[in-house]
């Protein structure tokens, strides 16, 4: 979600404000704001979403469906909304509809925040790629949300600078390493890109591409945590090696320094997702028309697979008194042609629904006037997204990632990257065990 990325630093700022409200949140138990009662008026639904302009899309629905009124309540993004929803559920007043990132689905299902809407929404299945639909069912017969947008990983690079320094666009990760070294040689104070420890989502997507399965449920009804599996180790060693030899930068993303590097061209590329143009507009405004997007480098030549970074879905809460109406809205929002067009135009997302990924609405991003087939290429890449495997304590794994990999990238030691991965595995496993999950390690 580009929107989510944008707000990264603002989110941290708001963190301070949120902390002040700690005692307030703790005390907020009991009470319910259900206003349906016995009145015969329209069904009123509240929708917690953080994507901007979601209310404009809801307005289209409200105009057409006077019997079901949806009110959008703007929320903080990503991981903040998870704690808020769990607390709201405890208080018995979770909103009817919720915007949920894919990796948070198991956490929310585990906390009984999300209702199974398979009764009302099963028919939507055909509208989505199989991998996306699997994420909202968690591999069960239930349906916990309707996919909204996806963030297939791609490689973005400065076309002009690549040409100038005679660099090749990498097709494999080996090529990527070579290009990184060549770039460093050509422009000593520049880097191809950075390894950032402050957004675990990218690392998760890269591991996903390599075939990692961090959380799986076996037939015996037991979780298996495999964060340090062979695929993730391969990814860790690759990036750790590049950082150690100094072929790529080690500073975190979304800092003023990072933006300046993108804008000044001291970062020549960025491994990012389909929403990258939205970030580049604000972070590197002087580079319009100088970027180009290519498929993500592959682990072996001839392969065609990518991971995803971000993306969210629309779920219905277990507190909702109108699950059917809510599911109807969620399905409309994410599969109806008019709604999809509005999502693209107003909310600037990349729709998850297959039919939303083609067509006239998705014109090339204004920031990429040199790549008119941007979204055709994107749709082809999106179709190759590997399945992801999320578990019920993604936040713990993500949290540990930022701390442990942050330390490792600061030290620029490949060996510490390995230790960091092991820490991530053990922290995640221990947490699940402590909570009482039936769980083993891979």
């Amino acid at each position, binding site marked *: 979600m580009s929107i989510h990325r944008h707000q990264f630093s603002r989110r941290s700022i708001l*963190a301070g404000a*949120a*902390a002040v409200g700690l005692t307030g949140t703790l005390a907020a138990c009991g009470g319910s704001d259900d206003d349906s009662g016995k009145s015969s008026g329209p069904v009123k639904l509240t929708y917690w979403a953080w994507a901007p302009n979601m209310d404009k899309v809801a307005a289209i629905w409200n105009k057409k469906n006077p019997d079901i009124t949806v009110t959008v309540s703007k929320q903080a993004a990503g991981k903040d909304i998870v704690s808020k929803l769990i607390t709201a559920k405890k208080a018995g007043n979770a909103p009817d509809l919720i915007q949920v990132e894919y990796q948070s689905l198991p956490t929310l299902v585990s906390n009984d925040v999300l209702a199974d809407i398979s009764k009302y929404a099963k028919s939507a299945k055909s509208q989505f790629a199989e991998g996306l639909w699997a994420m909202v069912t968690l591999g069960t017969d239930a349906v916990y949300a309707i996919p909204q947008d996806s963030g297939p990983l791609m490689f973005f690079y400065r076309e002009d600078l690549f040409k100038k320094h005679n660099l090749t666009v990498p097709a494999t990760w080996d090529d990527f390493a070579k290009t990184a070294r060549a770039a460093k040689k050509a422009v000593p104070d520049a880097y191809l890109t950075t390894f950032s420890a402050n957004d675990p989502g990218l690392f998760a997507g890269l591991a996903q591409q390599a075939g990692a399965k961090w959380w799986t449920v076996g037939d015996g009804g037991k979780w298996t945590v495999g964060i340090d599996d062979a695929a993730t180790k391969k990814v860790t060693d690759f990036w750790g090696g590049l950082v150690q030899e100094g072929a790529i930068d080690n500073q975190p993303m*979304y800092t*003023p320094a990072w933006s300046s590097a993108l804008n000044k061209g001291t970062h020549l590329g960025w491994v990012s997702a389909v929403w990258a143009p939205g970030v580049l507009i604000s972070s590197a405004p002087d580079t319009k028309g100088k970027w180009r997007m290519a498929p993500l480098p592959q682990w072996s030549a001839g392969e065609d697979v990518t991971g995803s970074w971000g993306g969210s879905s629309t779920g219905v809460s277990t507190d909702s008194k109108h699950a059917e109406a809510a599911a109807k809205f969620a399905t409309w929002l994410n599969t109806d042609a008019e709604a999809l067009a509005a999502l693209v135009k107003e909310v600037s997302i990349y729709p998850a629904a297959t039919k939303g990924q083609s067509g006239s609405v998705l014109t090339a991003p204004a920031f990429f006037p040199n790549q008119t087939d941007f979204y055709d290429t994107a749709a082809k890449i999106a179709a190759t997204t590997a399945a992801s495997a999320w578990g019920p304590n993604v936040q713990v794994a993500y949290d540990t990632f930022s701390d442990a990999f942050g330390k490792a990238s600061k030290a620029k030691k490949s060996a510490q990257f390995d230790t960091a991965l092991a820490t991530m595995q053990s922290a995640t496993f221990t947490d699940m065990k402590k909570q*009482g*999950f039936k769980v083993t390690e891979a």
Partner: protein
Amino acid sequence: MTATPLKGSDRTTAGPLADGTATSVRPRRRGRSAPYWFLVPALFLFAAFTVVPIGYAVWLSLHKVQVKGIGLGKGAREQVWNGLGNYTDVLHDSEFGHSVLRAFGYGLIVIPTMLGLALVFALMLDTPQARSAKFARLAIFLPYAVPGIIAALMWGFLYLPTVSPFYYLLREFNLPQPDLFDGGNLYLSFANIAVWGGTGFNMIVIYTALRAIPLEIYEAAKIDGASDLKIALRIKIPIVMPSLVLTFFFSVIATLQVFTEPMALKPLTNGLSGSWSPLMAIYDAAFFRSDIYGASATAVVLALATFALSFTLLRVSDRYTREDRA
């Protein structure tokens, strides 16, 4: 504790409400409950917004969530009694212990520097020779009026080599460019923000105390041939001691609760963990890991530690000021 704990509190007992008055007014029967009625609003607010939330946090800290099976869907989790389990975890959590040590390390830099500067500024402003004292006072105080989060972001910007004008100058003059987010420098970087923001406030507290000193004392000292420096060291500092104790006391508590600066700078660097300071560790547990139970236990431990520390400090300063008087 009845016999004047701090010198400064002498003042409150002087005046119309001093000792004699309480006994001279004969209490009337029907007025007896009146004071309690006046207390009701305060007590209600105190109960609703302090006692109940603290009680709830303590209650949470004694529980935990128990997950069954793979823990998906309804009834997969229940809240169970955990006794002192969360507390044992907190005390065995080396990361939390480290965060407390880091906060102390930070305090060791901040408190002496900030209070030292505040005292020096206050004394300088209090000398008769001080020019444009009003302006200087305002200028020193002004950073305190800048919200902590803004200050932290602003400094964060100045600490980043590629965007900071300071680093630009260092580069131009070929001077070494230290990494301000690394190891020990990190403490200095945070301390700098706190000193920048807090000196003004503390200076005002001390300065106000200085202005309350009767001028006759200075006159007497001058007649006895004391220099300005001697007056400052022998008269002013001892008299404003209670204010210094007070500001020290506030600073210690603020140190244990350091949150804004590291939280705002965390996204800018790899060198800062999510549990760098005790409050960050609590925030992280409650809002990112959704472990409200562990977070509550940690919060209770931190609150008790702060309480114990404050109490000890007060006792120590109490003894010190009494001995001083004797």
